[in-house]
């Protein structure tokens, strides 16, 4: 199976692990990630304003690229995923916006939101299947108590994202279980870490992040996994005393491709 892949700015830089292990794991699972040529940064956050067009064009170029190849578009960074999925939804549902965009991109032809957008996690669940992953696990993570941290961008707004129950999600827990580990369920896994507020008010972000880690730890977590570089940054900056890793790294470890890359 071949899919179009949008890595995003951070994955080529501070979050190389997230990217690298995504590639490695996909390979084991029989998925080829075809990186979109000349992709541009998604902008990090989706501007909800109805009259914002230019800030969404990079997403649409990526969507169109995948659409032209008749491939689903896969992202692994929560933020990219959120921006691209919301943009695509706007293309599908807001015809005035779609008109503007298409006029803007006259040379590229018209696009109406046809491309299917998957988060890497959704790809694992819906295109690969957790049962298939379970069969490919070589280093079982049995006995590890792992807490999934979703943050805000993966799940919300639910009307658009449609990934999982936004208040009691299970997709990452199901992944953890398929890798042989125990999933720690805790209520704050869908609360915001503080996001970009850490730039201006690091203390505020710290407060949120500490509460999240505390909630995970009280429920027995030995490790936290996440899909978002900013979440990882905030959780680590607040002084987490348990490891915070990208879910792709955990996946690669279980699939036995982590050593390879280190070597």
């Amino acid at each position, binding site marked *: 199976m071949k899919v179009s892949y949008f890595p995003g700015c951070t994955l080529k830089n501070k979050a190389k692990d997230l990217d690298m292990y995504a590639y490695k794991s996909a390979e084991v699972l029989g998925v080829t990630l075809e990186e979109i040529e000349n992709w541009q940064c998604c902008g990090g956050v989706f501007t909800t304003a109805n009259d914002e067009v230019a800030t969404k064009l990079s997403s649409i170029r990526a969507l169109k690229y995948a659409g032209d190849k008749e491939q689903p578009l896969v992202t692994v960074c929560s933020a990219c995923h959120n921006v691209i999925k919301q943009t695509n939804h706007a293309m599908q549902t807001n015809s005035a916006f779609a008109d503007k965009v298409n006029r803007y991109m006259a040379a590229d032809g018209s696009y109406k939101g046809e491309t299917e957008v998957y988060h890497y996690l959704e790809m694992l669940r819906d295109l690969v299947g957790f049962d298939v992953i379970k069969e490919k696990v070589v280093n079982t993570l049995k006995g590890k108590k792992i807490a999934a941290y979703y943050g805000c961008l993966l799940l919300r707004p639910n*009307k658009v994202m449609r990934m999982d*129950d936004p*208040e*009691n999600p299970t997709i990452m827990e199901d992944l953890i279980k398929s890798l042989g580990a125990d999933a720690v369920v*805790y*209520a704050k896994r869908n*609360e915001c870490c503080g996001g970009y507020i850490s730039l201006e008010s690091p203390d505020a972000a710290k407060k949120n992040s500490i509460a999240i880690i505390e*909630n995970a730890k*009280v*429920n027995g977590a030995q490790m936290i996994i996440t899909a978002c570089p900013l979440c990882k940054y905030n959780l680590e900056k607040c002084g987490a005393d348990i490891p915070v890793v990208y879910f792709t790294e955990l996946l690669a470890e279980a699939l036995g491709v982590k050593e390879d890359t280190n070597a």
Partner: protein
Amino acid sequence: MQRVGVFVCWCGSNIAGTVDVEAVSEALKSEPGVVFSTNYQYMCSQAGQDMIKDAVKEHNLTGIVVCSCSPRMHEATFRKTAAAAGLNPYMVEIANIREQCSWVHKDVLTGTEKAIILGKAAVAKVNLNTPLIPGESPVTKRALVIGGGIAGIQTALDIADAGFEVDIVEKKPTIGGKMAQLDKTFPTLDCAACILTPKMVDVAQNEKIRIFSYSEVTEVQGFVGNFDVTIKKNARYVKEEICTGCGACVEKCPMKKIPNEFNLGMDNRSAIYIPFAQAVPKVATIDPNACNMLKNGKCGVCSKVCAAGAIDYTQKDEYINEKYGAIVVATGFNPISMDKFDEFAYNQSKDVITSLEFERLTNAAGPSAGKLVRPSDGKHPHTIVFVQCVGSRCESCAEKGKEYCSKICCMYTAKHAMLTRDKYPDTEVYVFYIDVRTPGKNFDEFYRRAVEEYGVKYVKGMVGKVTPEGDKLKVQASDLIANKQLHIDADLVVLAAAIEPDKSARPLATMLTASMDTNDFFTEAHPKLRPVESPTAGVFLSGACQGPKDIPETVSQAGAAASKVIGLLAKDKLTGNPCVANSNELMCNGCSSCANVCPYGAISYEDKEFRMPDRTTKVRRVAVVNPAVCQGCGACTVACPSGAMDLKGFANSQIMAEVDAICK
């Protein structure tokens, strides 16, 4: 040719303000058949009606056209007037020149012109009217009540009290419904069981009432006065007439770990069970999904211990056909699922419960014998947070919750809070509310007592997130008055879940051809004037199946529904709607197109002999309409290619005449 009288109503200035009524009555004078035309201030008044009666006599009128408000308003009035004047009531036509003319047009010229055209159409129609005589049908003097909660119980008792036989069909093994699960009732705080169970016993002992418990209605045929109902008695594997309800089987049953639905799964029951001590009928029921004997033939303990020999593992579902004159729907409500509201962590913590679960927790017959404890660890909760409006008052296109106010939550939450503070004064009780709605006798006083005398902390605001952490529930909420975000470490969180109609209501409505609103509440025939009747004749509504209701309201509606049923059953014959289809057998092809589209099965066929022009005879298959079953929709008239099928009161020729009059 008819002799038509035209009566144009001013409706004060409602019509006369935008329509030149004088011009209308003058213009209609020259229409074919019109022999008299006038106008008057209030046609529906006694004086107006007398004017019509006098004109009928004076001008030998055979038809009447009233240009007035909507026929939905006063058609019946003017038909009565016509009848009083000796005319057939169906010789009246109404031109709607108020709702559909004077009220929607501003210009007098336009309004007048349109009113004249509408009047002409009515005259054209009435010229083709024929006197119609409603058919009669007999009444089966028995009633069916579907649902055995307090609504069904009260309706059945009241009907039986008037001397008519009543059957109650209840899908659970016992009657009693939600009220049987409640602890105390607001605002008087008397115990629900103390006031409900005597009524249940009354039902059981009433000779006029039969209870079909563990049963459901599977088919409804027929029409008002003559319903034909199939009731499915689910196999309970216990012979109801023999079982003494001693409970020996329940005690000895080895399968004891079945979630007890009566206590909302907070404790367990056995595979053979009696839902609660005061169940009616007090007989055991075997849960076929849990019983080893039924699943794999291994066990049979209950059969061995039953002294009465009531156990019958071979029992089959039984279908019973009964006839009824009236049907009362009392299918009640359920709290909605909390699955989509996990910001309150209902699925993540045992100590987040719904109000109905709280009700069982505080009930002396409940899983904790009435001791208020946390379901997770059995400890006494010191801080309790009640959250109002969970799933109520949501936006119409919201993906979770209901648009309406569930009505009962404010009061039962005040009750819960008050009782908790009363019994456990060391407990801190918070109630988060959006509005406190207490419109009922002694209701607001009750709520104020909870605050003022019992020290319940009411906070205007909503809970945003509940985080179970350790043995605490961290509640994050807003206090809008103080403009603060609150963080409370609670031991127990109680959600006032919205209520919704029982899931069985929708298929039942289809069977009954009774209408429902988008929320699956049954629609009443008129929201103000006929609140306990369904628009489908002979079907009545009792309790929360029509909308959220508390107990006193339910009981009053149950009594009202009963009185409507009694009014119906007291009649020997019913007069029907005469505007029914009829088939001209000379033109009928017998092709069955009409029967295919009839929603009521009102059309049958018979072979009939016809004399042919050449003096031979020919036998042909022709359609026959049962006027008592036909509801007059007219679907058949269009399906009929030859035009043999027509609708009285809305005949092809009449509608065509209206079209012609309008388009002239």
